[in-house]
């Protein structure tokens, strides 16, 4: 009996050994992709104090120290009593990441900025009278340069990162000139997948 049991254990062990390699292989996670996708949601302040918000999609290529970031963003900010700006843009950046998750980034982008004056807008009608309405908007080209610093928590099994992103951007044309702006963004990145 004991021999039979022992034989069964041995057989089972042998059987387990025989099937172990395939089962171990099946349970292992797939190798990480060479890129990651993230969604940024942040506060955007034109000159810090003119509040707004931005949503950005990040495509981060590379897993090592040196990474390439391609992003598309939609955002808006308001100067109370002055105007509201709505922007849509794309950027390419270079990111350096440390083992503990701290990263720095420099990026350049181009975009489109639509501004709307806040309040009623009066203008002359063809008959010379004055009519009021709302501003349909002014379009402008919006190149930008930005720096960013952040902390990626993915090593702590959290699919999140926080970041601070100061930037300068230009509005052209604004009274035929390039009008420079300074903006600061602080936000959260949510990583999609691994």
């Amino acid at each position: 009996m004991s021999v039979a049991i022992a034989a069964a254990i041995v057989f089972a062990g042998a059987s387990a050994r025989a099937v172990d390699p395939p089962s171990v292989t099946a349970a292992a996670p797939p190798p990480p992709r060479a890129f990651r996708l993230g969604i940024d949601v942040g506060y955007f302040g034109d000159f810090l104090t003119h509040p707004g918000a931005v949503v950005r999609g990040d495509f981060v290529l590379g897993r090592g120290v040196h990474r390439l970031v391609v992003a598309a963003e939609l955002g808006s900010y308001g100067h109370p009593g002055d105007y509201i700006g709505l922007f849509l843009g794309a950027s390419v950046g270079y990111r350096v990441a440390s083992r503990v998750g701290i990263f720095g980034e420099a990026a350049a982008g181009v975009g489109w900025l639509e501004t709307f004056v806040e309040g009623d807008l009066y203008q002359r009608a063809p008959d010379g009278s004055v009519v009021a309405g709302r501003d349909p908007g002014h379009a402008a080209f919006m190149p930008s340069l930005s720096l960013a610093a952040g902390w990626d928590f993915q090593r702590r099994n959290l699919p999140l990162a926080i970041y601070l992103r100061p930037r300068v951007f230009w509005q052209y044309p604004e009274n035929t000139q390039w009008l420079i702006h300074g903006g600061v963004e602080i936000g959260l990145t949510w990583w999609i997948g691994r």
Partner: protein
Amino acid sequence: MIQGGPLHFLAALFAAFSCTGCVDGDLFYVRSAGEDMPVWVRGDTGAGAIVVMVHGGPGGSSLDRTVNPPLQRIEQEFGVAYWDQRAAGNSQGDATPDTMTAEQYAADLDLVVDALSVRYPKRKIFLLGESWGGALTGYYLGDPQHGKKIAGWIDVDGTPDEPGILSASRTWAHDGAAAKVQAGDDVARWQPVVDWYDARPALTLDDLPQHNDYVNQLGGSSRYPDRGSSFDTPGLFLESPFDLLSFLANSDYTTQQLVLTKDPSKSILFRDLSGNLPTVTVPTLLLWGRYDGMCPLPLGQAIFARIGTAPADKSLVILEDAAHKGIIDAPDAVADAVLAFVHAH
């Protein structure tokens, strides 16, 4: 009719922190020849009169005048409409160089006046021009059709006789420096100034920076430069819509387009806008700094003599302790005179 579209809605939704209601008073815009210009109406708009603040420069701002005590005193009794001219202050849009003309500025002002009449019916409208704003309002009122819309003109240290400014200011600075030399007051400092003007019987645009510096040194810009500017008031940046970078960019652009032009003959400084002063018939209050070296007192006296306003309806008040910046130098005297004038008319 101008319509807001889905983009406007999206922008407003996104910038949810932004709101017109965050700004005191009533702020609206006028659109003229490609430019959107803010008009910020504050104070007692139910009192029956609105004073339109027309700033100097060209390329200054009226919005930054909201922190100045004389305007705040006027707001306590009447409405004050602070208008930023094209390519100045918070104005935005597309003010192309061909729109930077005295004629277009006058058309813009006329739109502001008409918009105020629509938004605030049955209020009397007064114009308060400061420096270049005085020149513009004087030029505007030279059209009798414009004069019919205006209850009174207040001019602080500004004349539409632009060419007269350069010559009168040169004479003021030369004579001021010469008087110091004659009195033995720091001769080593002031004799070179006299020599500089002696070598320039007529000033050119290239001479302006040095000339302005000498006028400042002689106290012809402000008697109290230590009082600083509106920019020293934090509330201007934290509680008002005033946009400093827009102001700076616009100011530089306007200076280049209207004053320090590539073609000097096109500078507003060489254009006499005073030809129609005799057709100005509205009640007029001229406020002039005794020590104004930028736009000296004889120019104010000339306006007083030339306008067609009845003698009983015009007055020239000399601000005894003020230079060119009367609103800064003599806040109480300016507020007292303006309030009395508006009450009277």
